[in-house]
């Protein structure tokens, strides 16, 4: 029910109260950059790239649009001087963090930030948390989590050892915005190097292609109550 009126970049719109400003922007084809956002995951608000300027009454604030709920009377601006200058500093910080990373470079170029004044750190992980959140919220095995806090914070397996719970589904790889998580399918084996795991893959009985890790398919079979032989044939052959 569209019960709230907001002014987005100068134009009035009727929206449902509580809708995140980012969704509204996207439905209006207004570009707001994001790094830690995925529609399948709970908004996290960590990368701070999606910031916008809002005005409520006579109070101006800079907030993250991925998790700020729309409400009646809100005024939203996506490209004010404050938003741009703040976002550019964050971009400079990210370039310093991951100086050799192609995806970060591309985003920077899109925003017009190609250099950084800060000292290079050299770590492709930008701490968006998507891998961990996907593993917990979508897959449900919580094989990985954060370790430490502050600048030593990093995604890790418990005690930095081979992950016990990982099922090799590769969700973390798909959501990672900087391709920091490295997965390789070599013959009948899948490796996800960051979590020190290797999996035997299930082979299609018909064409011989490798489908997915045994562990992953067992997990899905159990979760969704599929017959034991469900994955013996791959999707193409089915």
């Amino acid at each position, binding site marked *: 029910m569209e019960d709230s009126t907001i002014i987005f970049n100068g134009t009035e719109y009727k929206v449902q109260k509580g809708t995140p400003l980012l969704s509204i922007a996207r439905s209006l084809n207004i570009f707001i950059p994001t790094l830690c956002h995925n529609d399948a995951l709970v908004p996290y*608000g*960590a*990368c*701070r790239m999606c*910031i916008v300027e809002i005005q409520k009454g006579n109070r101006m604030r*800079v*907030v*993250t649009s991925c*998790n*700020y*709920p729309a409400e009646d009377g809100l005024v939203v601006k996506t490209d004010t001087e*404050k938003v741009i*200058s*703040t*976002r*550019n*500093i*964050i971009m400079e*910080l*990210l370039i*310093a*963090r991951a100086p050799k990373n192609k995806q970060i470079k591309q985003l920077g170029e899109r925003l017009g930030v190609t250099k950084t*004044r*800060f*000292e290079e*750190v050299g770590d492709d992980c*930008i*701490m968006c*948390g998507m891998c961990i959140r996907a593993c917990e919220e979508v897959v449900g095995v919580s094989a990985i989590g*954060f370790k*430490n*806090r*502050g*600048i*030593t*914070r990093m995604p890790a397996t418990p005690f930095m050892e081979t992950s016990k719970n990982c099922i090799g589904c590769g969700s973390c790889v798909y959501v990672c915005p900087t391709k920091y998580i490295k997965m390789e399918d070599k013959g009948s084996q899948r490796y996800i190097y960051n979590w020190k795991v290797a999996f035997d893959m299930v082979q299609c009985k018909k064409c011989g292609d490798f489908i997915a890790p045994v562990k992953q398919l067992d997990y899905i079979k159990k979760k969704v109550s599929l017959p034991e032989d469900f994955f013996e044939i791959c999707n193409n052959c089915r």
Partner: protein
Amino acid sequence: MRLESVTQLEELRNRLLSERDPSKNTIFVCGGTGCLSNGSALVAEAFRDEISAQNIDASVELKMTGCHGFCERGPLVVFRPQGIFYQKVTVKSVPEIVKKTIIEKTHHEQYLYKDPNTKESVTHEADIPFYKHQVRWVLGHNGKIDPTNIDGYILENGYSALSKVLTTMQPDEIIDQIEKSGLRGRGGGGFLTGRKWRTTKKAEGEVRYIICNGDEGDPGAFMDRSIMEGDPHGVIEGMIIGAYAIGSSKGYIYVRMEYPLAVKNLLKAIEDARAYGLLGKNILGTPLSFDIEINRGGGAFVCGESSALMTSIMGKAGEPRAKYIHTSEKGLWDMPTNLNNVETWANVPLIISNGPDWFSSVGTQNSKGTKVFSLVGSVKNVGLVEVPMGLTLREIIFDIGGGIIKDRKFKAVQTGGPSGGCIPEQYLDIPVDFDELSKLGSMMGSGGMIVMDENTCMVDVARYFINFLVDESCGKCTPCREGLRQMLTILTRITKGEGRAEDIKILEDLGDGMIWGSLCALGGSAPNPVLTTIQYFRNEYEAHIEKKQCPAGVCTELISLSINPDACIGCRRCAKVCSVSAIAGENKKPHVIDQKLCIRCRACYEVCPVDAVIIT
């Protein structure tokens, strides 16, 4: 011994009052963490032994109290009703003190406080400048009661505000009174307490929670420690009143793990309150049920932030979350939660007992009541002070604090901890209140007031705070995590003489990005010490960067130490503390520092009894 009604509580109070012997002498020994570290427990034992030995048990009793506030002069002992104040009391001095004060009815001169400026002794506590200018409301019980004894609290009118509330007031009335008083949060946010209570009360949810934030993490601040240690029932009474007003039946007190005595005294107080029926089901026979649990922190400054604190209580790593939806609406387990600081809670019973007008009669237009500050650093009188809002920095630092140690020159006062800023000399006459401090780029914060003199390097101070925060950042958001790291790199370079011309601008731009872009107030206020020192002490930054000099003589890479041969008496104390054996010389002859070996740690400078070590 459960009290089944307010009437029974009042009967107990009256009985205790009638049993009190007004002519009895009481010796109050400070048992706060500071004095305990200086051996006050042994001093108390010595007094007990002496009282016994002199057979005066009938007319003299001893009480160990919470922190008196004048920590540097501990162990502190006060005799009442005379009001005689003794400082730096030793076990050996006890018999003579007892003899002179009780038996001869005079005082023991040697252990009286001596004003460092007038050099005169002051006999009575009320006349000591440190205490004279204070308005001790919240700290009223500290120093007067044994915090582990609930009867002592009741004797001093404790739980009378609760009685008043349960017999004559409705929840909305209580919130009205708190709102009318103008009480603002004492933990740093300065948010109107009454408004927060009202929001929590009105919010949707099956249960409501109350939290007391005792995670005092600002380095240099120990106000909450003293209140929790010295007057735990004051906090508990405030929380029970809050619970009744807001409609909560469960409360938490989150105490940082570095305060074991506070945890101990709070646990005892909760146990005693439960035994009397002041906590638990049907408090004093009324429909109100409320109980409190203690949570110890795990050593994370960020857990002082309200959403991080709540995440910690729920059993997770203390990472803050966006507060676009306030915790008063969705806090613990997504239920309405009212979080207030220790000092804020301690003010509640006073406001209820004395009325909101009493409270708002003191203070400034928008900052009512008193504030407890920890006055530390380069002041002569270091300790905890409670003053009305609106007193000037000069009055606090010079009249109460006694001025700068060794009569050095005042340079700056840092307020608000790592979230605050450094205020220079030209603002000494501003009244201390929430808004005035914010206007200067600093903030009230929790009440830490660190005084700095001419021997403090402001760039080093900025670097110190950033270094502190780098370790404490939760690391979730980019501006804080990466921004603090880069600020530390730049500031470290500057203190090492490797500063670059563009550094100041970069720090300012980065600071701006962190203020607007960070997820929580840790990152959002982290630039304050840097930006205020750049604003008010830019010349120091420029000296470090352009001339590779540290005007205050602090930054290791930029100073050199030498011994003035005319002043040196050859006592060899410097040579003994030198960790690299860089000082040579014969006994009673001038010594020399070998510049090639010297690591410029300044240990020799600190120990030289004749100030013969020169820093250039």
